Structures are given as structure tokens and as C-alpha cells.
């Protein structure tokens, strides 16, 4: 049944959303930052690869190794400077500042790269697929992305729950002032969390650019999807984000089955339904206003 195919494709695209969303969730859970530029960051990651690959002549799949560290460092720097200044200023300032950054980013990309969509060419890798039956075809790359999403989220969960730095991040997220009292420089810890978040969004952006097209305005759509995944899954839960992403992906694919124009709309409707019926999400823990 093509519905089964829709569900399977939904799970695979859901993995993408989860990958996008985990950085958003981390930034909000730890620092309380709503990063409206999150989608644009992913797109920038893709564009950085697009720009660097011809210059450095490395195989496209190696772009992960180049771009992710750049983003980690950039994320730490941005957090310690602009974002921390916004946080110190007031509760809404980060919203306005990240919105401003989003507008700047999209228009800057427009100026530099024009509005044509681009993609990262990984050659034949993207076309390999296997079929389960006549109606269900699964591309290997999307399975890789699913595995990547599970691996990244799993690693993040382990890091947060077992490691010393992860424990520190959780402590700072719980109570910034008490964390100061045990000797933590919370600004530095915020920076580390931002570095992690930016690394995941770079991963997501690169994977997206490889499997699909990116354009300067792609960021908006991915932001909304990532946000919806977080809310559906529940704020504060790492695995909730994965579930939320999958639910969103499946909803979209089912909507697309009914009518291709309804794909994004279906996602919005599920999101609004969760808002109306269960605002804390499926696995929501903390209620952070």
C-alpha cells in the first residue's frame, strides 16, 4: 500500500527534522534562547560546503569534517558575544536578535549566491536505493540519515547524562546562579552548549544539501518544521525530539498522499492540534515559558 510507503518515508524525513530540532531544543533548554535563525544556520552550513568544496578539492562527503568544526567554533563565539549580550539585556531580546540575524543571513545569502537553488553533489550515492516491494522504495542515503539522527541524539543523551561537562550543562540549565556557586562559569558552559547545538545544525544542513536542494530562503521552512518537531515531541526531552520529528514527517507524508499541496499544511495542522490538546507535547517535562 502506498500508505505504508508514506509512513516509511515519513519516518525517514522525520529523522531529518529531529536532527534539525535537537540543536534548537538544546539552545532553548539550556539558555532559553529561541533561535529564529536556526533553519538559516543549516542552510549556511550547506552553502559553506558548496563554496569550499571547489576550492579545497575534497570529496563531498568530507565536507562534514570541515564544516562541523567551523560551526562548533562559530557557535561558541556567537554565544559568548552576541547571544550572551542579548540574554543579559532581557527576555525578548534574543528573539529579536535571532530574528534579525535570520533576515540578515537570508538576504546576505541571496546577494552572494542568488536565489537559485544548489545542492551538494555526492554522485551516485544519493541514487542507490532498495525496494521492499513494488510500491516501497527506500534510498540508502535516507537510511544513513536516520542512523545519523539516532546516533547523534543518542550520543547527546549519553553526553548529557553521563559526562562531567554534560552534568554541568544540566546544572547550569536548572539554576544558573547555583551553578555559579559551585564554581561554574555559566557563560563558558553556555558557549559549550551552543557549540554542540551549532554542530548538530551543521550536520543537518549538510545532509539536507546532499539529499535535496537548498536556497537562501529554505531556512524558514526548516525552522518551522524543527520547531514543530520540538513542540510535538515535548520540550526538554531528547528522545521526544526524535519522536516529534517522526510524527511530523509521517503527518506530512500522509498529507502529501491526499494531495501534494497539503504536505506542509498537514504538519501545521498536527502541530496546532497538539497545541490545542496537549500543549506540553508527547514527552514534555519542564514547562519553560
Amino acid at each position, binding site marked *: 500500500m502506498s500508505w505504508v510507503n508514506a509512513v516509511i518515508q515519513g519516518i525517514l524525513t522525520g529523522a531529518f527534522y529531529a536532527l534539525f530540532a535537537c540543536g534548537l531544543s538544546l539552545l532553548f533548554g539550556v539558555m532559553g534562547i529561541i533561535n529564529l535563525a536556526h533553519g538559516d544556520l543549516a542552510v549556511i552550513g550547506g552553502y559553506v560546503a558548496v563554496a569550499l568544496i571547489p576550492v579545497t578539492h575534497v570529496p563531498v562527503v568530507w565536507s562534514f569534517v570541515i564544516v562541523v568544526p567551523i560551526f562548533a567554533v562559530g557557535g561558541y563565539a556567537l554565544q559568548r558575544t552576541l547571544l550572551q549580550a542579548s540574554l543579559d539585556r*532581557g527576555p525578548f531580546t534574543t*528573539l*529579536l536578535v535571532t530574528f534579525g540575524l535570520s533576515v*540578515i543571513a537570508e538576504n546576505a545569502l*541571496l546577494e552572494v549566491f542568488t536565489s537559485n537553488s544548489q545542492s551538494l553533489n555526492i554522485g551516485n550515492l544519493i541514487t542507490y536505493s532498495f525496494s521492499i516491494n513494488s510500491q516501497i522504495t527506500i534510498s540508502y542515503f535516507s537510511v544513513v540519515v536516520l542512523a545519523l539522527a539516532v546516533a547523534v541524539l543518542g550520543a547527546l543523551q549519553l553526553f548529557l547524562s553521563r559526562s562531567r561537562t554534560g552534568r554541568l550543562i544540566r546544572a547550569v540549565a536548572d539554576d544558573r546562579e547555583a551553578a555559579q556557586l559551585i564554581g561554574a562559569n555559566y557563560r563558558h558552559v553556555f558557549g559549550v552548549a551552543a557549540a554542540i547545538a551549532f554542530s548538530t545544525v551543521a550536520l543537518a544542513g549538510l545532509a539536507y544539501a546532499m539529499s535535496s536542494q537548498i536556497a537562501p530562503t529554505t531556512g524558514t521552512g526548516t525552522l518551522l518544521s524543527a*520547531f514543530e518537531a520540538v513542540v510535538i515531541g515535548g520540550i526538554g526531552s531528547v528522545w521526544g525530539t526524535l519522536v516529534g520529528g517522526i510524527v511530523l514527517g509521517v503527518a506530512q507524508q500522509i498529507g502529501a498522499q491526499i494531495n501534494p499541496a497539503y504536505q506542509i499544511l498537514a504538519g501545521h495542522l498536527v502541530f496546532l492540534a497538539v497545541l*490545542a490538546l496537549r500543549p506540553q507535547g508527547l514527552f514534555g517535562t519542564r514547562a519553560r515559558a
Partner: protein
Amino acid sequence: MSSTRPAALAAPSVEARVTRSAQPSAWLLPVAAGAIVLLVFMPSLLSQGDLSTMVNVFILLTMAVMWNLLAGYAGMVSIGQQAFIGLGAEGVLAMAQHGLNPVASIPLAAIATAAIALPVSLLVFRLRGGYFAIATWVVADTAELVVSSISSLGSGTGSPVPGLSGLSAKSFGDITYWSALAVALIALAMAYLVLRSRLGLVLAAVRDDEVGARSAGARVMRARRIVFAVAALGCGAAGALLAVSQLNVQPSSVFSVQWSAEMIFVTLIGGIGTLEGPIIGTILFFVLEQSLAQHGALYLIVLGAVAVVVAIWAPKGIWGMIASRARFRLFPVGYWLWTHGATRGRKARRLPARLVGRGRGGQGQPSA
């Protein structure tokens, strides 16, 4: 028996007086009336091209005043006002297609938009802060998608607005201008009235201390809903104006998040939380746009960068910086406290209405 309290702790006696404005406002009314008369007679002074620019100024001004009401006074940061702009525009289109005069349908479309805002508020008010903001964006995107699927409205490619083809270019330009002027003036007047009313007092109290305001009897949810509806009304009117002035309604244009970007940046830079701020910001915006027009998207980049800088380092905006040094207010919506203190002079202190963006972001409670 005499008191054992040390003398320094005795309370100083203070005589206090509270007024609505710092300056006698008798001269304000004639000046404002004069300005309005001048604006009304603009069509005989300006070219059609300039008039058209003025229309865009009034449209953006209306949006900025509304966003400021939402975010600067009611504390609701929305990035989805384009939903109501688009609905206002589509409303005019739909009514025009059914034979109504497009200009006459501007107020109708605005009211319809405000009516839609009420059930929407039931949904989005479940979230706070940043999540409320993104939810408004999702609502806007949803509205665009739904409208784009309606074929009678031209689906995704949009549709021209019928009903005004009989007018000459000059008549059309003039009528559009006066409609836009009327909408902008009404928007300012509505915002001014809201803020001077009991509602404005509730909003100021909520902004300072929501729990305290609630326990003092303020109906916070109702206040927020009213403001949300008023903002939708204003943005709907702005969208309706767009439909009339452009004679074409395209969903991707009227529902574009760029409207939010412009109204937010304009308000931030001009001075959030003040009525004068959006006016200044809008003027600045158009000056900027005229000078950078040939550089494509550059003006948005510059605007965004300036907005970011202002949000962090000058959160009161241009008017805020002026106002903190002067006692002059174009729109007296606050209160002035006059005290005869121990200094034996008259000291006026503006009772603080806390703006978006002041204060520290840390946790912890100071306790004795």
C-alpha cells in the same frame, strides 16, 4: 517615652502630585490639527509617485503601531502578524469579487480579520514567550497555505482586484492616499485610546508584575485578547490597503514574513513601547529604502543589522533615547510624578513603564 529609632530612618515628608503630561498640552492640539490638515491636502502638493510612497509609509506605520501595541505594551512578541495582513488583503479581494467597492470593503475586511483573530488567540495563547512567537508564524504560514488552495482567490498566483478600473489614475491615487491616511490616523488614535484607558493601565501593571496584577483583580487574559484583536484589526486594515493600492493580491506577497521583519525593525529602531517610536522608525525606514533602493536586498541587511545593534545596546530606540532626556511627549500616555522633596525644588520623575528589553536575564531572587 521617646523613640529608639535612629533619626536617619525617619521618613521624609513628601508632597506628591500626579499629572498626565509634563507640559501644558494646550498647544499640542492645534499643531496636530495643522499637521493633519497638511497631510489631507498632500495630493495637491505631491506627484503620484510620491503619493504612492506616502501610501506605503502609512501602511507600514499602521503595522508598526500595531506590533508595538502587542509587543511593547502587552508583552506579546509576534512574528506572525502577516497572517492578518494577508487575510485583510484576501478579504478585500473576496468582497471585490462579489461586487463590493474595494475601498468600502477596507473596514469590513479589517473587522473580519479581527473576528478571526479571536479563535486564533485561544490557540496561540497556550504558549508564552518565544514559543508564542513561532506559533504565530506557523499560524501565518497555515493561513497562506489554506488561502493558496482556494482557486477563486487565484490559488498560489494571486488575482487582480476588480471594481476600481473605472477611476482615472489621479482619482485612484488620491482615494487610495486618503484611505491610507485615514487608516493610519485611526490606528494611532486607537492605540492612544487603548493606552490611556483602563486597559492601558492593566497592560502596564502586567508588564511589571503579572502575578501582582492578577491578584489585584486585573483581567489579564481578557486584556491580552483585546489587544491581540485590535492588532489584528489594524494589520487587517493595512493588508486591505495593500490590496487596494496594488490592485493585485498574491498570497506569497501579502503573507510574507518580510512584513513582520519590517514592522519589527521599524518599531525597535524607532523606539519600542512608545507611540512616537513607530512614527520615527517608519520615516527612517523610507529614507533608508530610498537611498539603498538600487542595491536590492541590501537595505534589509542594513536594517536587520541596525535592529540587532539597537536591540542589544540601545533597546529604547531613537525616541526612547530622546525621551529620557526630554520631558516632551507627543502622546501623553504615562504619568508624571511631581514631588516637593527635601531638595526644595520641583522634581519630575517619569513613572517607569518598563519596556521590552530592559533588565537582566539572570535567575535568583534578592532577599534580605
